[in-house]
């Protein structure tokens, strides 16, 4: 199931150093190792944490990967992003 693949990808981004580096180098390539839909991949790459939580991803994973890898690495930024309106499903 895709939600499980999403949790696997985000878990790896929380705890596995080589995975974090691969994501920093090329997030789309990192995501290609997991069985994600185009929409799911787009949400991971865009740090659409609200969209990921809405899909059912455990929020500890979204918060962890944000703090590890998102540019600001700030909890305030994460909460702001969580409170913003969700992005349209399907991406561009």
């Amino acid at each position, binding site marked *: 199931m895709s939600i499980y693949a999403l949790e696997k990808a985000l*878990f790896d981004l929380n705890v596995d150093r080589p995975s974090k580096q691969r994501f920093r180098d090329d997030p789309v390539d990192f995501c290609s190792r997991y069985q994600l839909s185009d929409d799911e991949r787009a949400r991971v790459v865009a740090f659409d944490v609200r969209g990921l939580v809405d899909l059912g991803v455990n929020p500890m994973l979204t918060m962890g990967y944000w703090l590890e890898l998102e540019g600001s690495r700030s909890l305030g930024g994460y909460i702001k992003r969580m409170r913003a309106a969700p992005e349209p499903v399907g991406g561009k």
Partner: protein
Amino acid sequence: MASVVGGFLAPHDPLMFSTPDAAPAGQRDAVSAAYAELGARLGRLDPTAVVVIGADHYVLFGPGCLPQYLLGIGDVDGPLERLPGLERGPMPTNPRLAEHIMGHGREHGFDWAVAKSITVDHSIGIPYALMVKPNGAIPVIPVYLAAGVEPLVPLSRAAALGRSIREAVESFPGDERVVVIGSGGISHWVGLADMGRVNEDFDREVIAHVEAGDIDALCAYGDADIVERGGNGALELRNFVCAMSAVPAVRGELVEYQAVPAWITGLGFLELVADGAAVAR
């Protein structure tokens, strides 16, 4: 004979270490004093081992293996997270008692997942550092309940597991004096849009149930209701009911409560007092 001589419920809020100054000085001091008080009370119980019941925050166990309840039977160190002021290191253990709890469980319907070696996270590392370690080298036995990652262990099962821990201790040959710590809560929204919300009404309600020793009332909460009123972090009530069930004829004594939005949590500190007559001797 060995017995569970008492217990405690205490939070494990990492923001106390990562952003200590975010909270008002008065609350910071009250929380520090509460940990010191629980630590002093723990010391007065003169324990020979402490069982600490924590919750994985999706950093110890991954999607490839998610235990419902896990016992550390061998080497223990931690905490895993790097938090300022919290030193990572080995913890003293009692493998004989831990293996006995495992074996007793297996004979009575609780086939524990086990860690032969475990680096605990902050949910065990913080209560250990602030309450156990100040009393010297008391062995720690870590227990993890699935309280933060689906599928969650049912509350009633957490209570039954706590009773199993107590029965296991009471069947252990020797004079062990075991203290149980339920680590967690109370209301907090972790990684959700409501992060920073604290629901003191819910927290006070939970505290009242703990004071009354009313495990059934706590087990009667539905998970959806807990998340609605106490946030996903309050699902750690599992750790409370497990610890309470491990203490003979338990009642709770509130030591401190602080609602600290800056640390995103309603922090409750309780002693679980065993009825003296019910403590096995």
